[in-house]
């Protein structure tokens, strides 16, 4: 085991459930480096949860290899299979999967078995403190709120110092306000622990708040992987573009090539050196609190789908167009 070995590696990993037309995971290759948070994003049925379960040892691959710290744990020529309990991973489930008959402290201590009693107590207290549940140690899961339960699940997974923590849509059952707060908290807790993590989600906000890199899965196939900002900027397809947020299809009239732009990339040709992309007709103007959104119909070959754009803050120098107006448009390069 060398210091530079990736924590988790997938080599052409496949999983095909009997009776389904296509593999749930199809020859996926990726690696997670120590200390990073990698997000796996994709729609439902994209295979992202299957991939996470393959990493945890809760599923067996039909092909390919899974390695942890460079050591083969599943697949390969021997079809070797290290059971989940010997992989030293942490897993946070969608709904927490807390042990309902154990207190918060006992839940956290569950994975610490085999250590001296004092060490267990100390580590349990430390982990509960990190998730701000130190005063709820004696409560049972059903006596905690939704957010507290999810934080407890995180503390339980972190307590045994796993080499890698797997988060399976950990916020999807929470209401929007709580989600926002919790993903910030979880992000900073992971950072404080220097924790390597694999985050499965379908919500781009989770990716932006927590992940350094993102991998996009579509129908079991890995479509794109890279730093979050560059994937956001340069998606390779509509699916990859829309996985991380709203996107507009812009066709270069000269070359006919399509590219994907973000709503906030919209510019008026006047406000700088941005070249004019073309013309568009304003279909609708909508003020949504802090910002103004326009729906534009592209003209002359720049695309055949409406663009949803955010009106740039032009400090009032350009009057807001009205529906029916034709305007010249440009995009941030």
């Amino acid at each position, binding site marked *: 085991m060398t210091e530079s070995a990736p924590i988790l590696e997938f080599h052409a990993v496949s999983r095909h459930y009997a009776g389904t037309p296509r593999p749930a995971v199809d020859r996926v290759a990726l690696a997670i480096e120590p200390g990073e948070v990698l997000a796996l994003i994709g729609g439902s049925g994209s295979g992202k949860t299957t991939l996470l379960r393959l990493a945890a*040892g*809760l599923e067996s691959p039909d092909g390919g290899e899974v390695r942890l*710290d460079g050591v083969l744990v599943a697949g390969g020529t*021997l079809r070797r299979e290290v059971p989940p*309990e010997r992989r030293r991973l*942490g897993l946070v489930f969608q709904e927490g*999967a807390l042990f309902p008959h154990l207190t918060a402290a006992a839940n956290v201590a569950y994975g610490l078995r*085999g250590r001296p009693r004092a060490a267990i107590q100390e580590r349990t207290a430390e982990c509960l403190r990190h998730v701000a549940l130190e005063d709820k140690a004696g409560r049972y899961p059903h006596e905690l709120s939704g957010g507290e339960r999810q934080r407890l699940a995180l503390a339980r997974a972190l307590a045994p110092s796993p080499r890698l923590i797997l988060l399976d849509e950990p916020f999807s059952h929470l209401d929007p306000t709580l989600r926002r707060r919790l993903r910030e908290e979880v992000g900073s807790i992971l950072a404080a622990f220097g924790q390597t993590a694999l985050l499965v989600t379908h919500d781009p906000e989770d990716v932006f708040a927590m992940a350094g890199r993102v991998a996009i899965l579509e129908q079991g196939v890995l479509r794109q992987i890279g730093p979050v900002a560059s994937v956001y900027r340069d998606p390779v397809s509509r699916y990859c573009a829309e996985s991380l947020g709203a996107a507009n299809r812009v066709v270069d009239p000269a070359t006919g090539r399509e590219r994907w732009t973000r709503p906030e990339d919209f510019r008026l040709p006047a406000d700088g050196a941005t070249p004019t992309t073309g013309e568009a007709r304003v279909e609708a103007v909508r003020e949504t609190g802090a910002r103004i959104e326009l729906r534009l119909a592209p003209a002359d070959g720049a695309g055949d789908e409406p663009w949803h754009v955010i009106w740039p803050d032009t400090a009032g120098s350009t009057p807001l167009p009205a529906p029916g107006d034709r305007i010249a448009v440009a995009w941030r390069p």
Partner: protein
Amino acid sequence: MPTASTGDRPSLPLTARDGSRRFRPDRWGALVTVGGAVLSLPLVAVLLRAGGESPAWESLVGNLLGGYIATTVGLVVLVVALALPLGVLPAWLVSTCDFPGRRLLSWMLVLPLALPTYVAAFVFYRLPEAAIPALVRIRTEHGADAFLTAEFALRFGLLALMLAAVLYPYLYLAARSAFSRQCRSQIESARLLGDGIAGAFFRVALPAARPALVAGGAFVAMEVANDYGAVHFFGVTTLSAGIFRTWFGSGDLVAALRLAALMMATMLVLLALERLLRGRAQYLTGSQATPPARRRLPAGKATLAVLVCLVPLAIGFLYPVGCLAHWAWLHVSAEGGFALPAGLRPVPALGLAAATTLFATVFAALVAYAARLRQTLPRRAAGGLLALGYAIPGAVVAVGVLSVTGFIDRLHLPLLPLIGGTLPALAFAYAARYFAIPLKLAEAGLEQIGRPVEEASRVLGAPPGRTFLAISLPLLRGPLIAAAILLFVDLIKELPLTLILRPAGFETLATTAFSLASEARLQACAVPSLLVIAAGVVPLFLLEKRLSPSRRHD
């Protein structure tokens, strides 16, 4: 067992060559396979021995078999048809309406479960005597054939009604739990879409409860097909009674075993049919759904509701228990007390039932867990095989157990005393016959706990064994207690296995009651019958306190 003092210990074996999982002994798989093999030995023995020489078989097929089958099918269909309204209507009323006495009726409606069908038969089979004048008139006016037909129809109909009234709780329990799990919004949308309360029942609640009703109906059908005591008293020869008659009457064991094999095949078909009927019908139910708010009924309708609930309860429990209490009173006051018959020692009989219950329940939890751990074909097959005993008449299982113990005893193994006709052999027969009850409840319980909790435990470093002890078993406590209670009640009532396999002189409450009733000493049999019922009512009361869906809301 790994131990560690720091969190940074790598717990992986670090070379790729050591212990591949494939070549490790699969202890959980072995447990299921060995357990399944041992408990299904009696059934295999039946099939093996059915191939022997049988002098009576030809004439049996030619003369009697058709009648046995027709009687069995007719009785099963009639009982299920009668039990459906008896079970489902009260279930619907107590789970969706509110009326005086609802809570009391809700649990009392379960009580017929404590009444063995043969005890009910002691009471009911005297009723046709009231019809004797009418039968005599038929005889004189229409001749002997008409008389025989009328007399048989009377017995058959009364038997069916009695069985339906004693067995409807299987449907009632299934329907009640289905209705209380249906979410409020489904029923309420039906009503908002213009259905009346009856429309909501027939168009939404009933179809949605179909899987539960099919399962409950299958239980009723199996109980009827397997019944021995009641059909014997009424002189209605079903396939199950035919097995006894062929064996003891014509002394042809092989012919009896062939009938048993035929019956096993029929049960397999029925079980497959049940699977098919339930099929894809895993309807969406709100797990956390609020059950429909109960509608308070106006006085007139409330009276009607109470009556609808009282009818099955009265026929299936209150009337027979009242009769027995009256007989017991007559008997005790005539004899100046009641002496337990020689041989009846309640403590070993109850102890045997309790020990079997304990063993079977724990083993069922292990098997259900192992089968879930990895869904391999042998494990699933073992699970199905283990549950099969319940679908087979006690008499058949008894013959199978006799074959197995006879075979082992003939081997004269050193250090092993003769096991035929001992209490352990009887306990083994109980387990082989009734293992389905704890197994199915444990499976359902695990299903309800859900996999993520177990998976979380595994990922946190607990191997399957520790996960079972620390997580699954404590969480299964409720279902397992329920399973133990149901099993215990069934074992106390058990008749055919005990009759055939008990050690000489060993009497349970059930065999005592049955032999007294067979000697037509009905008043004397009332006391042990009431004791059997009491031994069943107490656990059922405790169970109902635990399970009642109303508990959460009242």
